[in-house]
C-alpha cells in the first residue's frame, strides 16, 4: 500500500513537470508520413505495454499484500510448480508479442522503401560538428538548415566526412546513422508547414551536443523562391561599404582555407560550411546560435569558446576587421 501511494505521487510529480512545451524536438507529434507510421506503431506498443504493466504489477502488488505474513496464518503450501500454468504464461506473452511483431514487420518494410521517382533528393554529409546539405538536382549547397517543400517526397542520401553521426529530426521520423564510406537513406513526405528541430543523435566527439539542425517545410512556391535565391552567386557588396572591406578581408585572409563563397574566386575551401548565402540562414555554428550581428562577431573572434573542439580556430583580428567581416557575411542573403 505504501508502494502504491508512492507510485501515485510519482506519477503526479511527473505529470506536473511534463506539462509545458512547446517541444520542438518531440517524437510524439509526427509531421511526415514516416513519422506518422512510426508514431502509430509506437502508440500500439505503448498501450500493450500499459496493459501488461497493469496486469503484472497488479498481480505482484496483490500477492505481496495478500500473502504477507500474519500471526497465525496458514502454513505456506509446499507447491513446487504447475505445468498448465507454466504453459499458459509462456504462451500469453508469446501471443502478445505476435500482436507487436506483425505491425512491426509491416512498418519496417513500408518505411524501408525508397521514395518514388521524382522525389527531391538531398545529400546529407555529417561533419564534426555541422551538417552539409546538397541538392544535386537543383545545385543548392547549404549547411545546418534544410528546406523542403510540403507534400513532396524527400529522399535523404547520407554519409559522413569523418566519424559516425546520426541524422535525427524527430518530427519527420526516426534517426539514421551517417557513416563514412557508406550511403544510408531515409525517405519521407512532410505533411505540415513550419520548422522541425533536430540534432545529431550518435555521439561524435567534443561538440556532439552542438551539432543541431533545422528543417523548414515550406509551400511549394516558397521553396522554389528559396532555391532560386540559393543557386545565384553571392551578393556583391556596394562600393565603399563596410561589407566590401569585409569581402576583401575574407578573400585575402584565413577564411578561404575552409569556406566557399560562389563569386569570390579565392574562396573555395570545403572543410567548413559553404557561406555563399550564410546571411539567409537563421542560425550559426551547427544551428546552436542565432544568426545575429553580435553572435556572428563572437563566433568569428573565438569559435572554440562557443563550440568546444571546433575546427574553426579563434581569429585574433582587430575589432574593425571583425566588424567588416560580420557586415559582409550578413549581407550574403
Amino acid at each position: 500500500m505504501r508502494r502504491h501511494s508512492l507510485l501515485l505521487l510519482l506519477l503526479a510529480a511527473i505529470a506536473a513537470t511534463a506539462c509545458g512545451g512547446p517541444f520542438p524536438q518531440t517524437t510524439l507529434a509526427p509531421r511526415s508520413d514516416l513519422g506518422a507510421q512510426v508514431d502509430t506503431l509506437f502508440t500500439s506498443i505503448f498501450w500493450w505495454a500499459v496493459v501488461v504493466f497493469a496486469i503484472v504489477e497488479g498481480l505482484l502488488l496483490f500477492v505481496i499484500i495478500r500473502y504477507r505474513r500474519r500471526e497465525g496464518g496458514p502454513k505456506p503450501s509446499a507447491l513446487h510448480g504447475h505445468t498448465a500454468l507454466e504453459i499458459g504464461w509462456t504462451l500469453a506473452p508469446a501471443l502478445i508479442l505476435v500482436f507487436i511483431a506483425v505491425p512491426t514487420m509491416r512498418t519496417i518494410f513500408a518505411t524501408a522503401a525508397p521514395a518514388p521517382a521524382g522525389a527531391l533528393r538531398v545529400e546529407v554529409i555529417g561533419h564534426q560538428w555541422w551538417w552539409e546539405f546538397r541538392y544535386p538536382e537543383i545545385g543548392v549547397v547549404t549547411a545546418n538548415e534544410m528546406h523542403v517543400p510540403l507534400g513532396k517526397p524527400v529522399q535523404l542520401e547520407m554519409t559522413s566526412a569523418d566519424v559516425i553521426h546520426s541524422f535525427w529530426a524527430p518530427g519527420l521520423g526516426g534517426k539514421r546513422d551517417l557513416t563514412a564510406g557508406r550511403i544510408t537513406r531515409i525517405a519521407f513526405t512532410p505533411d505540415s508547414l513550419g520548422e522541425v528541430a533536430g540534432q545529431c543523435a550518435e555521439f561524435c566527439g567534443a561538440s556532439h551536443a552542438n551539432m543541431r539542425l533545422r528543417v523548414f517545410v515550406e509551400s511549394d512556391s516558397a521553396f522554389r523562391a528559396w532555391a532560386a535565391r540559393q543557386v545565384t552567386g553571392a551578393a556583391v557588396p556596394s562600393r565603399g561599404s563596410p561589407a566590401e572591406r569585409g569581402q576583401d578581408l575574407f578573400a585575402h585572409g584565413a577564411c578561404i582555407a575552409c569556406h566557399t563563397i560562389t563569386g569570390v574566386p579565392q574562396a573555395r575551401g570545403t572543410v567548413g560550411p559553404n557561406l555563399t548565402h550564410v546571411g539567409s540562414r537563421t542560425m550559426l555554428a551547427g544551428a546552436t546560435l542565432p544568426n545575429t550581428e553580435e553572435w556572428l562577431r563572437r563566433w568569428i573572434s573565438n569559435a572554440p569558446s562557443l563550440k568546444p573542439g571546433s575546427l574553426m580556430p579563434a581569429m585574433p583580428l582587430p575589432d574593425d576587421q571583425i566588424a567588416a567581416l560580420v557586415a559582409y557575411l550578413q549581407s550574403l542573403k
Partner: protein
Amino acid sequence: MKSWLTTTDHKRIGQLYFWTALGFFLIGGLEALVIRAQLAKPEGIGVSAEVYNQLFTMHGTTMIFLALMPLSAAFFNYIIPLQIGARDVAFPRLNAFSYWVFLLGGLFLNASFVAGPLFGAPRLSVAPDAGWFGYANLTSRQFSPGPNIDFWLLGLQILGIASLAAGFNFIVTILNMRAPGMKLMRLPVFSWMTLVTQFLVITAFPVITVALVLLMFDRFFGTHFFVPAGGGDPILWQHFFWLFGHPEVYILILPAMGIVSEVLPTFSGKPLFGYTVVVYSGVLIGFMGWGVWSHHMFSVGLGPIADSVFSATTMLIAVPTGVKIFNWIGTMWGGQIRFTTAMLFAVGFIAMFIIGGLSGVSHASPPADLQQTDTYYVVAHIHYVLFGGTMLGLFAGMYYWWPKMTGRRLSETLGKWHFWLTFVGMNLAFFPMHFSGLLGMPRRIYTYGPELGVTRLNQVSTAGAFLLGIAVLVFLVNLWWTRRRGEPAGNDPWQGATLEWAIPSPPPVYNFTVIPRVESRLPLWKTEHHGAMAPLPLTPPTPIHVPGGSWWPLITAFGLPVIAVAAISHHLWLVFVGLAIVITGIYRWAYEPFEV
C-alpha cells in the same frame, strides 16, 4: 596484511571483490552526480564538454566493468563454494589472480583521471571519452589523438583477463566440486545462473578482446580495421562490440536473477515455483542472448531483412524472461512473506525489471527504436534494467548474505530507509528520462537549450539521483554501524534452505567440518519426500588440509598493468619487463610446492 595479499581463500577474495567493487561503485556514482548536476540547468553549470564526455564514458565503463560485474563476482566467490558444499573453488590461486588483475585494471583505468601531465595534455584528466561502447572511427588516432582511448582499450583488455580466468574457474568449480548427491538439478538457482553467466563470460569476452586488439593495432601500429579511408569499416566494430555487449547484458542480469530466486523462496517460506522452468529459461536466455546483438544497431541502416530478423529474436527473448517473472510471483503466491530488507529489494527488483523489460519491447521494434535509441529513453531503459534490475538484486544479495559473510546482520531499520530512498530515488531519477527522451533529448549531450522544454524533467531526474546518493550513504552507515553492533547472525538467520546456512557465520576457513551428502534440492528444509539434513559436527572429525597463501598470483597480475603502462607511454623495453614479470610469476606459480 600479508595474509590478505597472499590469500587464496575464496571467502577473503569474495570480501576483497566486494569492498573494491563498492569503492568503484561510489566513484561511478559520483561521476553520475556530476553529470546530473550539469544537466539540472539548460546550458549546464560549467562542466566543460571534454570533462562531461569523460564522465559519462567512465560512469558507464566503471558501473558495468568495475562495479556490477565484480559485485556479482563477490557473491560468486563467497557463496558458490558454500552453496555447492565445497571447501574452496577449483583453482584458488587463479581466483586470487582474477581479483588482483581486476583491481589493477580498475586502478589503471581510473589513473587516466590524473595522468594528463604525464602526456603533456592541457588538463589533468585524460580519461576515456568516446562512450562506454567506444564506437569506431571516433576512437581512431585521427579523431582521438590523446591517450584517453588507449587507457580504455588497455584497461578493458586487462579486465577481460580477470573475467576470463574467473569464468573458467567457476565453471570447473560448479561442475566438479559439488558435494556428493548434488546433481545439477539440485543445484541452487544462484549457482545455476552463475554457471550460465560464466559460460557467457568465456564465450563473449574473447569477442571484445579481439575487437580491442584490432583497435589497438589501428591506434598503435597504423592498421585500418575500423578506418574507412584505409578500406576498413567502422560498422565492424559495432558488430564485434554488441556481439560481446548483448551477452554482457545477461552476464550482468543473470546473477541478480539468481539472487532473487534464492531470496524469494526463503522469505516466502515456500520452494521456488517451477525450479526447472526457471533454470531452463535462464539457460535459454543465455543461448538466445547470442542472437540479438544487432538490435543495438537498428539506426545503422542494416536493411529491412536484418532489422526484422533481429527484431523477432529480440522479442522472443521476452518470453523466457516473462516466464521467470511469473514463476517468482508464483513463488510468493500462497506464502507467508516476511518483508525483510532483502525481500524488499528482491520484490523491488521484479517491479522495476518489469518496467525495464517493457521499454525493452519498444526498443525491439526497429521503427519505434529509431525514435528512441540514442535518446534519454534508452538511458531510462538501461537504468531500469541495470539499476532497477541488477543493482536492486545485488542489494538483496547483500542484505541476505551479509550475516553469512560477517556473522552480523545489517540493521533492518537502516535497511528499510535504504530501500525506500533507493526505490523513490531511482524512479524519480530514471522514470522522467522516458519522457525527456520521447520529447527529443539525445543522450550524451553536455548541454541543451531551454527551448527543448525538458528542463523540469531533468531537474526531477537530478533530484532523484541525489536521493539515490543519500540512499547509498545510508547503506554505508549501515555497513559501518553493524560492523560491531549488528545482531549476531547464528548459522541460519533467515531459515534458508541451501547449504551455506548449515555452517557458522562467518564460516571457518575449511567451510564444512564434513562435506555433506545432499538428498534434495532444499537440503535444510523438510519437504514431502525428504527430511531436513542432519546438523554437521561442530568440529572436523579429521584434520582438514587448507592450502596456504601465495604471492605469485599478485606478482603475475602486476605484470599486466606494467605492460599496459609500457604500451601507453610507448616504451618497448618496459613491455619486456612486464612480460618477464608475468612469465616468471606463472613459472614460479606452477612450480610452487603444494604444501606451503
